[in-house]
């Protein structure tokens, strides 16, 4: 398995570690979160492996290319449109969550629009770069940021204020039957690998994903799910945890680095995670843009040998991203995120079914 797929999975894991997934889990902390997480792990990992292995049948092809080759327009158009919108929505949710978080904890005097614009200006440039560059960028940023993030997480784990008794209390709810909300939210953190719908063209998958890959992804998943759910409980207690808007920021703010130039861990924490979230946003919107491009290509928008369709799509991306988050507050954002996560099985279903149809049609 190419290392870039691991990067995709890692980026999604890290981005959702402190965003809305822990909040959804904590709001239902007495409603079978642990069982949901265990189920979600099996569900997420197995679907990841299935998707990767299915794409092995179509080397160097993107999903639009596969579907256009094997199915007719009435089938591939709605499917690709659905995927494009989903990816855009995924990016938009990440963007809004992080903008809200950044404005609440770091620069509370800046307006939402300005923080969003700071993202959008750079992202718009990022959407125009080559697909291989997106892969390289992901790698460079992860290599730079992950060690520091790991260090901070170790710092949080080893903090004396972390009370393992609270964690034990939370553990006692292991016998409660799982709920769908928490199940879909915790499955969402495994979604990273599906980005190969576009990047499959640039990634070489040599071997079939097997036991080793399953083990690696599962270990990463277990660690992330455990950290994202139990550590804030260990710091903040089990009883009132559901009232925290961003439980992870509060948690990281409990940790101090006494002798460092930046004393409060939370600032480094937010800054680093914003960097990774930017990469997540870049990947999601890049995939979305490519999917939109594959179904909307306006021949009339030609200017000096350049087709302006993609510029138009990027402009639309930006306009929606500027105006939509203004209408929304934290509570509504959480509701939208939940709704989005709940659609996850449909998403996987459509993806796998369309790949299977393509496989049969192309007689692979």
């Amino acid at each position: 398995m190419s290392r870039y797929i691991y990067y995709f999975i890692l980026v999604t894991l890290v981005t959702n570690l402190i965003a809305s997934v822990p909040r959804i889990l904590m709001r239902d902390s007495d409603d079978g979160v642990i069982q949901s997480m265990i189920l979600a792990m099996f569900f997420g990992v197995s679907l990841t492996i299935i998707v990767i292995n299915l794409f092995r049948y179509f080397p160097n092809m993107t999903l639009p290319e596969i579907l256009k080759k094997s199915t007719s327009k009435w089938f591939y158009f709605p499917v690709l449109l659905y995927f494009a919108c989903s990816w855009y929505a995924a990016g938009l949710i990440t963007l809004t969550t992080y903008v809200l978080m950044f404005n609440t904890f770091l620069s509370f005097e800046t307006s939402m629009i300005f923080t969003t614009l700071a993202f959008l200006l750079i992202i718009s440039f990022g959407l125009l770069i080559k697909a291989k560059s997106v892969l390289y960028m992901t790698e460079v940023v992860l290599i730079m940021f992950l060690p520091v993030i790991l260090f901070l997480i170790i710092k949080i784990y080893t903090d004396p204020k972390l009370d393992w008794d609270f964690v034990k209390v939370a553990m006692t709810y292991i016998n409660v039957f799982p709920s769908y909300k928490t199940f879909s939210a915790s499955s969402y953190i495994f979604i990273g690998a599906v980005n190969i719908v576009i990047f499959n063209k640039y990634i070489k998958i040599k071997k079939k994903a097997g036991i080793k890959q399953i083990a690696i992804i599962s270990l990463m998943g277990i660690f992330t799910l455990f950290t994202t759910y139990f550590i804030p409980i260990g710091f903040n207690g089990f009883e009132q945890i559901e009232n925290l808007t961003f439980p992870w920021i509060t948690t990281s703010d409990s940790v101090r680095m006494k002798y460092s130039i930046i004393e409060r861990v939370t600032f480094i924490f937010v800054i680093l995670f914003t960097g990774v979230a930017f990469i997540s946003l870049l990947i999601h919107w890049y995939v979305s843009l490519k999917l939109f491009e594959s179904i909307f290509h306006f021949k009339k928008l030609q200017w000096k040998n350049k087709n302006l369709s993609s510029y138009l799509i990027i402009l639309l991306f930006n306009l929606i991203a500027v105006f939509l988050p203004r209408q929304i507050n934290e509570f509504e954002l959480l509701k939208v995120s939940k709704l989005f996560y709940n659609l996850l099985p449909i998403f996987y279903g459509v993806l796998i079914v369309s790949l299977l149809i393509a496989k049969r049609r192309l007689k692979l």
Partner: protein
Amino acid sequence: MLTVNLIVFKIYFSGGVYYLDGMVNSNFPPLMIELSEKFPPSNDVCFKPLQIEDNTVFIFYLKSAIDGAKLHDMLIKPFFEMKSNQSFTFYIESLPNLTNMQYGEELLIEITKGYVLLAINDAFYLIDIKLVNSMALQQTIIEPTVYGPQTALSEDIEKNLNIIRHRYHEPTLKFDTHALKGKSHKSVIIMYDEKTVKQSVLQNIIEKIENLDSPLIQSTGELQLHLNGSKFSLFPITILTERPDRISYNLAAGKVIIMLNGSPQAIIAPVVFFDFMVSMEDNYHTFWITTFTLILRYIGLFICFVLPAMYVAITSFTPDIPRTELALTVAGSRVGVPYPSFIEVIFMLIFMEFLTEASIRLPKAISATATTVGGLILGTAITEATLASNIMIIIVSAVAITSFVIPISEMSFSIRICRYLLVIYTTLFGMIGLILGSLGLLMYLVNKRSFGVPYLKMYWQGDRKEIEVRSKG
């Protein structure tokens, strides 16, 4: 005894009429007559027959381009000592400086480069006896090292080729000569090790050089700009070097070297970002010293790029990020500064740029005064007048020092410019501008290609298939 009977003809051309000095010989080779017509009347055009008894040969050259003594020793003297034209022909054919005969426009160019055209009976020979006065090896000035070779390249391409041959003993080392189209008609030599070079990159470079269409290219620096492709590019995609050891090191790594006649620097292509952070000194030290200096350089790069913008972000947007004592110190030192931090930063940075620029351009004797006046007096006076905080002065000096840590100065120039972009982006958006602006620059670098090779990506050691063109060097 030989009876010497030398007649010199000089042909002057004016207004379509030939005036011949001395005797008119009807046996002049037509090619030479044609050539002399093509050259405008100039005192250094020489066209003369050499005659002894029945043997006559003709030579044609530009006096200013050739080595007179060499011409005498190599051609004129042997001619008069030979018995017959035939033995002289054999002698000429055995000369090492004999080159392939050219015709038409190219012949003219060769003659301006210092070749002598020789006609024996009906055969023509082109012999290289050029005189180059800039053959002396230069000291390494741009990339000095403590250890390692202390001499750089010379301005003569032949000599440079000789230097490289003697540093890189591989039979697969290959020199390709191309001529630039423009007025300078300079010869460009593309040098590579056929065993290690990446063919696609090589083709890309050759194509670019052959398609160059610029009237006058004088130095490799200029050539490099034309190879760059896009007009508004911020980062160099080739390295200019004067060090022969860097050249042979890069040849071994499979890169292509481009040399231009008359220019003491060579172009290395393709390059990756990490190449700009390597000094040749690294090869002459032990592992830990090298690692330490390398880390030092990357820290320098980071500080030089981020520090001014970070000052803006922290003082004007989020003063709560650093620990309280530090935040208070910064705020305390800014007491009395009459304008927002970004004006302070840009103002001080620009003054520092003036200082750097002035000390580069001035003669060495004066530049010391400039630095003293600028650095010490201005620095003290500015803080006493509270036009800038003390901490700002420290930051500016730190930034100035660290930008000189980057070994290849072109990269340090590029980073200097990027710094301002980051300051502007941070001024607009605050802390998030700082993070995203840096990521944006990173993305720009990642998306850049140097002759098809990714400019910045993780090159894993040992992953040969992916590397192809090795980094480092």
